[in-house]
């Protein structure tokens, strides 16, 4: 086994089926397209935007792969099992499941409504469990791959992210537990935790999440990020493609932070004009 097999050399996912939630746009779309480029047939799960899901399906088909768009509301975990039953009918198998979709109400925790908390957790926690429960039988003893998309708010307190951060922390806990439980089957379970990635959702997260004007906020975050840029869907997709590959068979139970170094920077450095200079660090 060499690195070439882990990369895009040839089609490492040929004949395999990848299911990606929230795949009609943004990061989910980038992940689905990357896996398709590497050979996978893809299920594009989406909630609302049938037109964009259709575009994602067309883009995957142009790569010569099969694609299926499935509309479901992950806020209703009962919808998950029937969706996977449909995948079973159409494709007969699942090899890779990527839990990417998330949604929440951004507000101070004291103002969180019960139904908002429930919906946030239904999407990131309950539906994730339901999907893994439904996907594992379709992996049929093969060394399947589960990858969950987490976020900075799982580990660091962020204003208005009380509900989503808690849900993502629960998701990362499930990554560890499922890695332990599914390890004997050869199935690996990992997470990726991106920093600022410029997608459709990024503007929403910045404006509603941390209540800043988007363009200014992005400039500020980029200035704070040691690599001096925002991430792209393709950055995250490349890491997901590695984790989903045969070459990553010994890596499980981890959530890998991919944030351009943002969260390892000492908070004291954030007060400086040139955050990465380290001048004045303790």
């Amino acid at each position, binding site marked *: 086994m060499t690195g*070439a097999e882990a990369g895009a050399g040839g089609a490492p996912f040929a004949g395999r089926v990848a299911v990606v939630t929230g795949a009609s746009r943004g990061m989910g779309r980038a992940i689905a397209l990357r896996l398709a480029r590497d050979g996978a047939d893809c299920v594009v799960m989406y909630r609302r935007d049938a037109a964009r899901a259709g575009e994602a399906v067309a883009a995957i088909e142009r790569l010569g792969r099969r694609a299926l768009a499935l509309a479901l509301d992950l806020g209703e975990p009962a919808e998950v099992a029937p969706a996977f039953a449909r995948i079973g009918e159409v494709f007969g198998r699942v090899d890779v499941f990527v839990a990417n979709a998330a949604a929440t109400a951004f507000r101070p925790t004291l103002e969180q409504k019960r139904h908002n908390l429930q919906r946030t957790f239904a999407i990131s926690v309950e539906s994730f469990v339901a999907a893994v429960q439904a996907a594992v039988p379709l992996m049929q003893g093969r060394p399947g791959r589960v990858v969950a998309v987490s976020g900075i708010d799982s580990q660091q307190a962020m204003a208005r992210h009380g509900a989503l951060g808690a849900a993502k922390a629960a998701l990362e806990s499930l990554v560890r537990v499922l*890695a332990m439980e599914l390890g004997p089957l050869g199935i690996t379970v990992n997470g990726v935790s991106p920093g600022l990635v410029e997608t459709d959702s990024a503007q929403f997260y910045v404006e509603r999440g941390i209540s800043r004007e988007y363009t200014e906020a992005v400039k500020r975050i980029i200035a704070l990020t040691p690599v001096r840029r925002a991430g792209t869907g393709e950055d995250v997709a490349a890491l997901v493609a*590695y984790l989903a590959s045969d070459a990553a068979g010994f890596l499980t139970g981890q959530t890998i932070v991919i944030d351009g170094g943002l969260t390892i920077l000492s908070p004291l450095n954030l007060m400086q004009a040139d955050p990465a200079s380290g001048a004045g660090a303790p």
Partner: protein
Amino acid sequence: MAEDAARPLAGRVALVTGASRGIGRALALALGAAGAVVACAARTTEQVEAVAAAIRAPGGRARAFRLDVTRADDVLGQTGAVAEALGPVDILVNNAGITVMRQTLEVSDAEWDTILATNLTSMFLCARAVAPAMIARGWGRIINIGSMWGKNGVPRYTAYCVSKAGVDALTRCLAVEWARHGIRVNCLAPGYMNTDFPREAMADERTRALILSKVPLRRIGEPEEVAPLAVYLASPASDFLTGQTIYLDGGQTASW
């Protein structure tokens, strides 16, 4: 992205320390297969000559170098020799390391110093030696080989654990300081691998069963399984990932 997908490291020069056997050997072979020109370094050259030859056999480019990573003058001299022979180092894999199992009260000053010098200070010395050329060219990758024991308390392995925890901190500091120069620094931390060191421990059947019962995947890793992650971390595809320690351990650090 115009890069050759099967050979994402084409045109890059990689230096791998401790390349004569185990994980270092596997990494050198994989980087070579991914297109890099590989400087295979070790304290003595006999085994490492064979590794370089194995990279050259299918058409790769590689050369063996004698290098004592504990000596600052040797690190400076030999990284200079690598640059002269192959070109400036684009990818540094800090892999060389040793361990000794001993009750902490019985560890001598010299032994402590040797373990820290070999496992930790060496990584600083090598990074310091190759970084100026990376900064000048605005691109570089440093992969430090850590260990899951860098975050655990392991009786009788104090110096080793301290050195590997130090590798994590070194990784973070170099990552944030050099990020703006296009240098990415990450730590790849293996769990139990099929190399000389755990193989000795696992010769005892009871120890082996105990270890495997704690690994969710119910097996130890092969050195070759570290390679694809190293190739990814060495490639342009990992440009947004820096300062992280990634555990490749069959799930061991995630479970208890």
